């Protein structure tokens, strides 16, 4: 029993150790990619808490990612905030957005929930376009390199960027590793498996789902704020439907309801698109094919299939 319960912890720290050491061996181009992958994996992990662990399929998470991104970007360029408080504004904006959307959307279930979240996110995207005077619409805006400094460290430098992304990833990864095995996470899993039963065991399932939505939205917002801070660009593209579908795709590919799945999914999809976009402008074809093939042949995703076949302990 002790061996079994120690394996997940070993995996969590093993993954973090690998990511930390990879910077030393990777060429700069791939280290830059990996920094981007880690930030996007944070987004995917936030999505996974809601989709993979709670069983709620949202098609509107781009709104939370964008709320984090614009919260940080606008408060830095508009109010002249420094990165750390601006990051807090970003996460706060995403948390608030997810609380409001969650409160409304959780009155529906199933297909209606997907469409409602999609509609709200679409409205959010249009709001960004509508206030083009501040947001610069589709074109977006750049956060100056001179402003992206924390304690005198230039975040646009290779090492600083990599390790800031790493810290963001590690905090979320460890937090979620703890959360999904804590009573709260266990209850979310029970709701995913059979919501009515969980309710008839005395759980206020609506409240649990709302909390899951808020945590998920806050993590997605942290990813959006981190992305804007580390890569210096804020744009409406990140609020489009496509960016709501990406985390779904990543999580499905890596394995919904697994801790490591989001990172694996983002990693594979990032390089798949990176390679195919060099060949054709129709690189989203890869995403489409992946979605169809996954639903047909591996609905559990990479880590999910691993868990089913080999490592039953995978958290």
């Amino acid at each position: 029993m002790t061996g079994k319960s120690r394996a997940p912890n070993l995996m969590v720290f093993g993954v973090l150790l690998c990511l930390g050491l990879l910077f030393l061996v990777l060429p700069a181009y791939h280290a830059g990619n990996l920094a981007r992958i880690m930030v996007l994996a944070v987004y995917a992990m936030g999505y996974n808490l809601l989709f993979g662990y709670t069983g709620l399929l949202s098609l509107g998470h781009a709104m939370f990612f964008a709320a984090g991104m614009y919260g940080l970007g606008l408060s830095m360029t508009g109010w002249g905030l420094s990165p750390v408080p601006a990051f807090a504004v970003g996460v706060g904006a995403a948390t608030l957005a997810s609380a409001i959307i969650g409160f409304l959307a959780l009155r529906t279930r199933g297909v209606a929930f997907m469409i409602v979240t999609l509609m709200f996110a679409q409205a959010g995207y249009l709001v960004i376009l509508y206030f083009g005077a501040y947001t610069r619409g589709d074109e977006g805006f750049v956060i100056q390199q001179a402003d992206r400094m924390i304690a005198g460290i230039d975040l646009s430098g290779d090492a600083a960027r990599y390790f800031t992304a790493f810290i963001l990833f590690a905090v979320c990864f460890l937090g979620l590793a703890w959360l999904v095995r804590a009573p709260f996470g266990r209850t979310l899993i029970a709701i995913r498996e059979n919501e009515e039963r969980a309710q008839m065991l005395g759980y206020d399932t609506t409240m649990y789902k709302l909390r899951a939505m808020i945590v998920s939205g806050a993590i997605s917002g942290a990813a959006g704020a981190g992305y804007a801070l580390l890569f210096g660009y804020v744009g409406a593209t990140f609020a489009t439907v496509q960016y709501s579908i990406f985390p779904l795709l990543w999580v499905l590919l890596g394995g919904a309801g697994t801790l490591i799945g989001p990172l694996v999914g983002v990693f594979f999809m990032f390089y798949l698109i990176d390679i195919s976009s060099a060949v054709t402008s129709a690189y989203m074809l890869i995403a489409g094919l992946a979605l169809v093939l996954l639903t047909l042949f591996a609905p559990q995703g990479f880590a999910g299939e691993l868990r089913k076949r080999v490592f039953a302990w995978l958290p």
Partner: protein
Amino acid sequence: MAAVEILKTVGLTKTYAGLKANTDVNFVLPRGKVTALIGPNGAGKSTFVGMLSGRTPATSGDVFFEGRNINALPAHKRIQLGIAYTFQITSVFAGLSVHENVAVAARRIAGGDQSALNARVGEALARVGLSERADQIAGDLSYGHQRVLEIAMGLVQAPKIFILDEPTQGLSDSEVEDFIALIGSLAGETTVLLIEHNMSVVMRTADFITVLNNGSVLARGTPEQVRADRHVQAAYLGTPDA
């Protein structure tokens, strides 16, 4: 009897699109006793217990738990008061282990203390004879074992009232015997409300019987009284399938 009632309904009524499923049901559940709710198919038994547990909203009437009106409480709040409920159609967390199924039920009460929780879960599983299967996935269990697992999920909550909706349906004869022994062991500690078709189970376990027919109470009393009731004989017991 009135002094020791734990739950009472007054004029409880449920209407589905003009059709009355329950009409003016006045019902008392004596504390610490086993009460059976019987009646032919479609008599409104499941609707009635649904209204007790809060799964089904009542059209009119009142439910009192320990003297307090609980009409306004949603299902999960009623469960938190100590009303445990097992589904008529088996409803376990099919993807989770047997242990985790019971742990979900226990966690709300036991809180975060892992060893106390495990002890509690282990005890409940032992009581229904599922200890050996604690690590199996619930969905892989046989139907009979899933029903027994449901009972363990109820037991582990140490409920004040334990509502069992047709618990012996689909169980083998030996499993039914185990169930009767289990109900016997709860005597005095938990109030049991049992919906049951199998009359031998009812006669061997129940202290009191309430008979529902066409959504209304037809008779109530001890097994002997109910057995002797002419209306009941005409409506229900007289049929050969009992």
